[in-house]
Structures are given as C-alpha cells and as structure tokens.
C-alpha cells in the first residue's frame, strides 16, 4: 500500500465541495465513506492530487441542519429549481424522511443505517433488503447511498433497487439542483449522469403500495462479492392474476436494466403461468467477462427472475389476504 500522497480538504457543505470540484477539476476526488474510492487509491488505479471529504458536510451546524427540512418528500419537482439553503441541502443529505407515499434518503446515509432503519423496512422493504446484501459489515458501516449511486457499478445493489423502484435522485452543483430518474442516471460501467461539479443529495422512492409484493435476489461467487447477477422485482396481484409487475436485473449489462418486455408479458398471468411468461428474458443480452460468460449470466438472470417473481407474488397475496 504505497500510495502517492495527496492533499485532504474537508468540505463544510455539499456546495463547498462542488466549488472545490470546479476549482480543482480532474485532480480532485470526492470521498464520503471511501469504500469504492480507497480500494482504487490503494491499488494505484486512481491517483488524486486532492481528496475532498464530504462525510462531515452539514455536521457542524449544531443540529440546525437536522431541523432544516429533512422530511421534505421531494423528488417530484419537475425540472429542479433552486436548491434552497446549504443547510437544507445538508440536512437532506443526512436524513431519512418520508410522507405522501414517498421515502427520501440522504446521500450520506450509510448502508447499515438504510438496512436497519425501521421506517425504511416498513415503507420500502426492498430497499432495506438490497442494502443488507452489500459487501460485508465493514462496507455497510462506512459506505454511503450517494457513494454507491455515483460510483454506478453495474453489479451494485442500490442502483438496481433504485431502477426497479423508479427512484429519482436529487443532484446539486451547489448553485442549483435538478432531479434525475435512476434509469437516466446510471449510464454505463462506473459512469453516471453527474457533471464534474455535481453531487448526489438524496434519492426519493415511492413507498411500497398496498397489495404489492417484492423480492431481491442475487448470486455471487463468494458471499459479499459483487453479484454475477442480481434481480429486483415488485408485483401487485389482483383477483389471482398479476396486475402490475416491475422487473430489473443488475450485473448483467453495463448498468441496471428494467425489463419492460418481461413486465408486459407478465400482466394478466396466473401464478401457474408466470414462469412461462417470464423466460427466456427478452430485452437482455448479458456481458461476458472474467467472472462469468454471457450464457451463464443469462441463465442466472432467468433463474433469479423466476425465484423473485415467486416470492414477490406470494408476498403480494399475503398482503392482500
């Protein structure tokens, strides 16, 4: 671990960090939990000149930040608009808030907190389950939602859950904020729609509606590894048939994918028809790499989708029973 020394700068707010990014450009990297950045730094894959620490953003506001408006449901502001005060942004980035059928999670919320928060478990259990599957306990202690989303690893759990849920991310450049749909945010391998000077503030997901069931499934070589294939499914059954379904897969392409063709094929299916209607998965052409061939991945995805649909249908029927 002989890393090239770099400078360290602690940002008091997200807006400060955006300003520093504009000043320093490519030479700067942002750190929150550090669970994606520091492995790359330790391996010499990234050699920043300065690391900007946002993990303390808004923390020194003596509690004022926490009162500033953390429970804004948000996410539904078309076209963004002014971001409000630094304080409100900072508060939003640290809080889990909800209301009006939405759940908003701050970018600085750790995976452990997301996995263990009772409000998340009741409002959107799929998200809590996805967070609980990330890495190992040490990654979950430090790793943050914003870090995982911005890193945009195609096999990561949270981007997949967000795409399945139809989440929207609030991002800021410190001067104004905009909202980006998860599906339009994750562009390709480790590539997001964030501009050089933008940071994720929060993510907003709809709460699990009445009668919906969910499931999150993944296969990895070793427990805690990135998934070879992962699947997030939501189903609403009505009158014994599938009324609505959302199916997304991760680890199979350069970004998490919603499978619209599969969703459409499932509408109206009875439980006995689901497996036949779902597979082989249309709209999916997995990647081959050192971990698995495309064929193996396609097989894993099909199996996981079937398992996830089973579980989600059962949960939906229990919810309506």
């Amino acid at each position, binding site marked *: *671990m002989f*890393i*090239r*020394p*770099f*400078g*360290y*700068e*602690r940002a008091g707010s997200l807006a400060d960090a955006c300003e520093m990014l504009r000043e320093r450009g490519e030479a700067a990297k942002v*750190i929150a939990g*550090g*669970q994606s950045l*520091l*492995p790359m730094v*330790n*391996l010499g894959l990234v050699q920043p000149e*300065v*690391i900007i*620490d946002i*993990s*303390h953003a808004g923390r020194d506001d003596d509690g004022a930040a926490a009162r500033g408006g953390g429970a804004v449901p948000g996410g539904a502001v078309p076209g963004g608009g002014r971001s409000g005060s630094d304080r409100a942004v900072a508060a939003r980035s640290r809080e889990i808030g909800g209301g009006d059928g939405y759940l908003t999670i701050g970018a600085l919320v750790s995976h*452990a907190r997301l996995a263990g928060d009772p409000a998340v478990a009741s409002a959107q259990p799929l998200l809590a389950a996805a967070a609980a599957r990330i*890495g*190992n*306990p*040490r*990654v979950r*202690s*430090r790793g943050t939602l914003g870090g995982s989303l911005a890193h945009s690893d195609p096999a990561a759990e949270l981007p997949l859950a967000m795409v399945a849920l139809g989440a929207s991310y609030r991002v800021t450049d410190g001067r104004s904020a905009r909202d980006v749909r998860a599906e339009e945010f994750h562009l390709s391998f480790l590539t997001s729609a964030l501009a050089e000077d933008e940071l994720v503030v929060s993510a907003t997901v709809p709460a699990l509606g009445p009668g919906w069931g969910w499931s999150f499934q993944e296969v990895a070589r*070793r*427990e*805690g590894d990135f998934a070879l294939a992962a699947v997030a499914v939501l189903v609403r059954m009505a009158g014994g048939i599938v009324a609505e379904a959302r199916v997304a897969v991760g680890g199979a392409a350069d970004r998490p994918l919603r499978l619209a063709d599969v969703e459409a094929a499932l509408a109206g299916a009875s439980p006995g028809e689901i497996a036949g209607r779902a597979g082989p998965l249309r709209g999916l052409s997995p990647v081959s790499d050192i971990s698995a061939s495309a064929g193996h991945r396609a097989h894993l995805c099909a199996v996981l989708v079937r398992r996830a649909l089973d579980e989600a249908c059962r949960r939906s029927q229990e919810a309506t029973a």
Partner: protein
Amino acid sequence: MTHTATITLTVNGQRLTRTAGAHLTLLRWLRDLAGVTDPKYGCGEGVCGACAVLLDGEPVSACLVLAAQVDGAEVTTAAGLSGPGGIPGPLQEAFHACHAAQCGFCTPGMLVTAAALLADGRIRSRAEIRAGLHGNLCRCTGYGPIVDAVEAAQEARQARPDPRDHLGRAPAGHDAPRPRPAAGPERGR
C-alpha cells in the same frame, strides 16, 4: 487543502495525537505512527478483514478509512477487547479455548468482527455466525474453530450473564475474578 494533519484518536481508551501525511489510512496511522500493531494489513481493498477495528463502535476496514476523516473518533482494536490489566476478555478466552487461531494473522480482525456481531446480545445460529464473519478471511483454520469460539462465547454469556459488555469492560466497581468459560469442543491431537 492540507498535506499534513494532526489527528487525535482515542485508541483502546488511550488518547493519542500524531502528525503525519493527510493521505494516511487509519490502518497506517495506527500501525506506523501509533505503534498499535494488532490490526493487520492484508489486502488494502476491504475484502480480507485483517485490519478490522471498531470505529465509534462500528466495524470498519481500517485500510479503507482516512485517518484525517475520523479525527476525534474512538477506535477499539482486538487488544481493546481484553479486560483490565490485559487479561483476556470473554471472546479472547473463547478463541483460546477453541484453538481458533493458528498463524494468528486473521485473529485480531476476527475478534473485532465477532465483538460487533455479538454486541446486541442476541443469540445467533451457527449459520448466522458464519454469515456475520464472511467478510473475514482465514487461510489456516478452515473457519470451524472460529465459529466454535464465537458460539462458545455467546453461550457462555447466556449461561452466566456477564457483567462485562462485549468490549470486556466491567461496570464501575465490578472487578470480581471471572470463572473461565467452558472449554471448546475437544479436538484430536
């Protein structure tokens, strides 16, 4: 921007202040500057768990935290799990009794991870213990004795509720001698 940082951490109850490059990880800060060598450097990528420490009570990879990020924090290493005067704490005793260390390289990280796992006092199944330790690699034991030890530690605590918390700290005024925990499963010699 700063290239050097003066950091104060409370390590196993002791306040330590050191000045060094702002790029140092918590692991290098502990080992190279503070002489706290029980956390080990295995992979530097967060996957092996040899460097695990508790940071304000939460398990972290010390190789994936910048010391400058956590100025003022409280760090507990495996050595901090011992009782007053350095006598082994309950987890350490169970590891000893179950022969859960061979070369010992993974042991400090295993102890810290186990301490975090058992912190809430809930009794876990063997499968849950295995799942809880999956982020810590051991090249020697085959994991069996380590799982035995964690199981023995939680059973010992349940059988005779121990006034010490999972860090081995006795409540104030309590320093009665402790009975040794039940020995681990017998192994052939």
